[in-house]
């Protein structure tokens, strides 16, 4: 969306027109691209959903957890010699480099999430602050991190880092699915399945669900709530780190101090769409939002509509079915 913000504005008079023909023409490419973006949204959405499930708090700083991952990817790959041009490396070394970048991004994001929790939210929890205070703190933290980056790196986006040249893999309905799309979607889905299994099967996952359902009872039953909260933030951070790698892969020049902001809102919208607090809902919501945004953009003929459409979807969902498509299942019944 950053690239989209930089594009010049159309000044023609038919600012809103429904280009159905174009949608028909580009339907499949829009679908594949939408799924790619949707996977990224979904990964970020998981972070919102998990924290919301456990703390009943919109962690506005999650978009900054994500953007820290983006910076980690940028610095790592930049350090490894990646630049705006397609690198001339063997497949194996590219994979190796990317895995390294992925791990570093995950660490950076998880660390950010951890610090945000400890520094900002924990003191509030300790004194049982009202929800409004939590929310304002959350937005304040988000703001602070963004402008710390701004103070250090300045307002303009970082130089592009291109990871590899997307190569055609399949041909579906006359449209090419390239390696990049495939990597992102598959990797994202694998991560989400792992997360889902972790939450539903592991002991810690049970703890997370227990805390989400009823923190007091969970504590009485011997669940260490503080530990669960940290783990939840860290998991959200790890997933956001992964999302960061895919995001930079998709938009090489998208690393900017405020780059997480709009993506964060969209990811949250995705989480709400699927049913906030619901792990599968985040996946479904992310993919759907990616598709809707892309279709809307082609239908309406301007890339900026993606954001508007995503926002409309959020408002519409809240209006019609605030519990989301799959409902809120991580634990919380509507308080």
């Amino acid at each position, binding site marked *: 969306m950053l690239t989209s913000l930089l594009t010049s*504005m159309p000044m023609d008079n038919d600012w809103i027109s429904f280009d159905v023909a174009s949608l028909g023409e580009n339907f499949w490419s829009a679908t594949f691209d939408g799924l790619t973006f949707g996977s990224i949204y979904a990964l970020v959405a998981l972070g919102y959903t998990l924290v919301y499930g456990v703390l009943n708090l919109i962690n506005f700083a999650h978009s900054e957890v994500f953007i820290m991952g983006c910076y980690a990817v940028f610095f790592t790959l930049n350090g490894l010699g990646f630049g705006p041009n397609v690198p001339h490396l063997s497949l194996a070394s590219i994979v190796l480099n990317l895995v390294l970048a992925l791990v570093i991004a995950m660490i950076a994001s998880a660390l950010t999430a951890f610090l945000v929790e400890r520094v*900002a939210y924990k003191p509030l929890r300790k004194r049982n602050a009202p929800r409004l205070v939590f929310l304002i703190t959350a937005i304040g933290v988000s703001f602070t991190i963004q402008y710390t980056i701004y103070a250090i790196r300045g307002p303009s986006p970082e130089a592009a880092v291109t990871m590899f040249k997307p190569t055609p893999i399949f041909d579906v309905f006359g449209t090419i699915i390239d390696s990049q799309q495939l990597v992102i979607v598959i990797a994202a889905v694998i991560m989400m399945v792992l997360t889902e299994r972790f939450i539903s099967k592991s002991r810690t996952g049970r703890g997370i669900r227990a805390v989400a359902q009823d923190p007091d009872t969970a504590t009485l039953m011997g669940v260490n709530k503080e530990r669960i909260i940290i783990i939840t933030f860290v998991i959200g951070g790890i997933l956001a780190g992964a999302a960061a790698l895919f995001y930079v892969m998709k938009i090489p020049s998208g690393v900017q101090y405020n780059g997480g902001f709009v993506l964060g809102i969209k990811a949250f*919208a995705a989480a709400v769409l699927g049913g906030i607090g619901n792990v599968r809902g985040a996946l479904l919501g992310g993919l759907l939002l990616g598709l809707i945004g892309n279709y809307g953009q082609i239908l309406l003929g301007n890339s900026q509509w993606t*954001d508007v459409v995503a926002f409309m979807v959020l408002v519409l969902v809240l209006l019609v079915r605030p519990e989301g498509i799959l409902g809120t299942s991580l634990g919380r019944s509507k308080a």
Partner: protein
Amino acid sequence: MSMTDGPTPLPSAKAAQSADDREALTTAPGASIAGRKGKKPGSLGQRWNALSRQQQWAFLLIVVVLAYLLPVINPPILTTEPGNNFGLACFNMARFALIAIGLNVVIGYAGLLDLGYVAFFAVGAYVSAMLTSPDSAFLKIPYLWTIPVAMAVTMFFGVLLGIPTLRLRGDYLAIVTLGFGEIVRILATIIPAMKGQVGFQSVGHPPGTAADGTPIFTNSNGIPWYWLILTIIIIVLLLVGNLERSRVGRAWVAIREDEDAAEIMGVPTFKYKVWAFAIGASVGGLSGALAAGQVGFISNQRFDVYTSILFVAAVVLGGAGNKVGAIVGGALVSYIPDRFTAIAEYKYLIFGIALVLIMIFRSQGLFPARQRLLSYGRDAYKWAVKKDDGGASAKRTAGTAQEKGAQA
């Protein structure tokens, strides 16, 4: 309190607020409590309460007069010059103060987090610009008429946005308003009629010419605009004060304190939340229209979401729920970057950090004061204080012990 040591940047605002507080504060409900909690005696509020009614009025009058004279006096240490024209700086302080008053209704009274307040500001500014600028294809009306129109339109948007979100818990409102702030900017870019970056030139201004035939209200001279907005602030404060000390204000604070309990006590919570949101929005629109007139130029570049967060910081800094606090907070947020130009570049960072620190360490803000919710409660309180003081101290200590149990 260190930030307010020395002269307050916008004494006027404070004065206007207090002037509004017609209900005398001699029997401030908080006073005895503050004593109990072991707070240092002689805080600003208590000293104020100790004054007689006449003294309070005299004091207010002086402060209001000083406030009007502020840009003319241009006091040496306070002044923002040479970096920034002081008249304009005063106008901007007052503009932020007005915004903070409006946002305070939403955040401070009703406890709703509106993170897209700049969008309402933008809507107000656009309404004003599109109805006066020669660049616009719309019909033209005199500038002053655009102000009520802008308020009405923003109020409409407030209701439109409030209805789907206010039925739900507060968090959704926060994220939806955050999104809305961004959407308005994008729409201003996409919709040709709103002219994107090109924007609208020569937005109108109030009529009137000086003796030499030049218009009074110009873009370069902030002082007349400051006087205009100061007057508006005083009016808005009076009106908001009326609401505060009525059924409406009580409903808002009840919602903030415990929404479910409020509903069960017969408060139509949804309706009053929409009202809070709409009233807040209209004050935002009002300040947008004034800003558009003063600057004379509007484009999509002026309304980013970050400004919204700055507004929230203004309210929270002073103390949410407290008009004096909101005004001082708003004025500070505008004044500090103007006065200390060296750090102006980092203002977002500074206020972001301030926001977090305030929330963690002093969530009641710099000027904690509670709202007064009764128009005629004074005599009753006076009676209660008198009765209560009659040998109630022993009872009170007993009560405190129990209270601990109750609060745990």
